[in-house]
């Protein structure tokens, strides 16, 4: 594990998201209403919608383009839709948000 500080928790709106740029495209970092943080790929597997712009409800996000819903915990599409987004480890400590750089590098290598 190689936790890197990517910013303050307060920089992400509750029930909202911000993106983090990586060499292989954007990662969406979500903050849920209970102040948990989740990181996933920002691209919807359907037609590439920016998931960071979706509506966050519970531990789920709805893609803004055609309303597919994904679990932020497992990355799986809910309901009738099939699809999967990548999820990454994220954690919060003392009001700061950390992502695992090793994992994100694997992403760029893959």
């Amino acid at each position, binding site marked *: 594990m190689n936790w*890197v500080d*990517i*910013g303050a928790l307060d*920089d*992400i*709106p*509750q*029930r*909202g998201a*911000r*993106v*983090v*740029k*990586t*060499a*292989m495209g*954007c990662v969406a*970092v979500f903050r849920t*209403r*209970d102040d948990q943080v989740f990181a996933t790929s920002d691209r919807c597997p359907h*037609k*590439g*919608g*920016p998931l960071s*712009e*979706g*509506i*966050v*409800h*519970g531990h*789920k996000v*709805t893609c*803004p*383009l055609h*309303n597919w*819903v994904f679990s932020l915990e497992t990355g799986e599409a809910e309901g009738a839709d099939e699809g999967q987004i990548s999820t990454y480890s994220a954690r919060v400590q003392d009001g700061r*948000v950390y*992502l695992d*750089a090793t994992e*994100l*590098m694997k*992403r*760029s290598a893959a």
Partner: protein
Amino acid sequence: MRPRLVVIGAGMASGRALEHLFDAAPDAYDVTLFGSEPRGNYNRIMLSPVLSGEKTYEEIVTHDAEWYTEHGVTCRFGETVTRIDRDRKIVVTAKGETSYDKLIVATGSAPFIIPVPGKDLPGVMAYRDLDDVHKMLDAAEKPNPKAVVIGGGLLGLEAAAGLQMRGMKVTVLHLMGHLMERQLDPAAGYLLRKELEGRGIRVHCEAATKAILGEEKVEAVLLEDGTVYDADIVVMAAGIRPETRIATDAELEVERGIVVNDQMVTSDPDILAFGECVQHEGIVYGLVAPLYEMAKVAAKTLQGEDAAYRGSQTSTKLKVTGVDLFSAGDFADGDDRDEIVFRDPSRGVYKRLVLKENRLIGAVMYGDTQDGSWFFGLQKDGTDVAEMRDTLIFGPAFQGGASVDPMAAVAALPDEAEICGCNGVCKGQIVQAIQDGATDLGAMRAVTKASGSCGTCTGLVEQVLAVTLGDDFVLPTAQPVCGCTDLTHEDVRRLIKSQELKSMPAVMQELDWKTSCGCHVCRPALNFYLLADWPAEYRDDPQSRFVNERNHANIQKDGTYSVVPRMWGGLTNPRELRAIADAADKYNVPTVKVTGGQRIDLLGVKKEDLPRMWADLNAAGLVSGHAYSKGLRTVKTCVGKEHCRFGTQDSTGLGVKLEKRLWGSWTPHKVKLAVSGCPRNCAEATCKDVGIVCVDSGYEVSVGGAAGMDLKETEALAKVTSEQEAIDVTVAFVQLFRENAKYLDRPYKWLAKVGLDWVKARVVDDLAERQMLIERFDLSQSIYQKDPWAERANADAQHAMAPLANLTLEAAE
């Protein structure tokens, strides 16, 4: 000539009897219907939801003008029958005489007004009909209003709960030791009292009213014990008695009620009576279920067929949202009786069954009434329950070792089990109706009336549908907002207003949302309802808005955005055009397009560039065109009389004025307008949400057009002579739409539901209402009419819209 049937009383009982009669023998009689109330038949038992704001009067009408016309009924509403002359076979009203061959007396009950000093003061009212409800609602409008309800029975408590939901400070005075003592035992009465007090309703039991105080109108109520409660209104709900005066005068046999036999015939063979005004086998009824059975029999009698009414057992439910209460039968203590009691204090559940010789004779339930009808069925059938005594109180799901699945319990119900108490519909009838093709709730109501009255059995009816149809069951027509709630949009809107819910957590808490923070379907709707209803108190929630409204630009399929500056009424000038061209250059806009609404669209802008682009456009005096919003979009115009040889008025100028007034208003769906200078209609005004066509004599305002997925021409709303009036009518219309429509309904869809006449009555005919709508619109605009670009064209927004971090370097290492 057909025999003449005259009906006295247009209430629930006679309405039902006429239905049965017309179904079986549409042409048997020439019917004249008298009613003291100035309106036709409505579902009286739903007055409480109207009082509390959970339903509108329109929703509880059971027979409208069309129905009466269709069946050839001569309606004499607002006309009281004062005398029956049996010798000449006529009835007499203030307007004259009407002769009959057969007569129905269905006059219902009169409220009992306790004979204390002050009972005639203005502000003392009964709770019986729509006029009473209106009086109560008027009183609730006053500042800091207070009400005293005399009577803690079914009616009194529904009135109290309704008035409290309307914002009144309510005190209930009840003569007995606990509430609803005729239906509840003290334990259940206690739970009910606790619930009501928790809502802020004051309850005073053992309260004997001594006098109602006041000079010109009610001011207070004085009790025997000296207590005084201030009151702006006093609602008497202390009981009812059969309305028998005209029958007594006509020398029909009357005891407590008009005496009838099993065929519903009075002591005069040509006069039938049924409903609350009669007495059958010594019993007088005050609930609808028995009346409906009587109505069925009476209709048969009128057709000359055999039928007999044999009395009814009744059960009671209180229609107060959030209070679950059921009682049936006899539940007094006694040596010859056993009882089974179940309490779960943490859930607020209490159930008590009273048995006599192993048969159920009474049941009281509070907090969990799901099994009520099953118990009621056992009681009516006199089933021997010895075998299931141990598990009886847990309900049908626990019998015979069956699973606790409620579906299994419903499946196990016998055909005779009563499902809908109000209409006396049993399971067998519902199953039969399903086999005959009634596969949804609406059809079921139409065919059997099941769940069509007080509605508390709706869930059960649906379960029978589901059990019988299996996978073929389609959900009821009134769709809930989304999976987070069982309430419809209409319910939610009404409850937000009546319970004064002013934040999203309050809505979700009070209306029992099933999820912690909603979903992408309900949150945008709730956000709109709250800001439309409480503009001054509610704070907009960007996280409950769709991406376009959060980023103030339209998201395109590749994730870039399109930006549309406002051009008032379609006007622009070289300076603005230059600024637009400059922005297009600076932010590498690949496509520049003129939209269908006469604005310029800059397509393909990157999200990070949005805040700086807004700042540049703002600097040139341009504001956001809201081309992305569920709000006012554009007002399209033609050139009008300034330039065009046909133009009759300044259509461009009016378009500019309208856009300046309406821009920035959030609405249930997008709203588009157009103004044309003459009937040649170059601005295509007749397919917009509001279209104005200028004519020589003024302005023709029409509404409800569409040119999207549906194509629809507008319908005429008003013809006005001045520009100011055209603006007023438009603003009032938009506000009425904002206050009433379901989220994501365009005006044409909403109009199809409420009807153009309803809208006209408020926006065009009622000038006071129009003015109030305009005021409420302007209040909302004083808060929400602001340019989102200006607000967000700053460093903070730039920061928030940029990536949180850039790990491209690290990742590359």
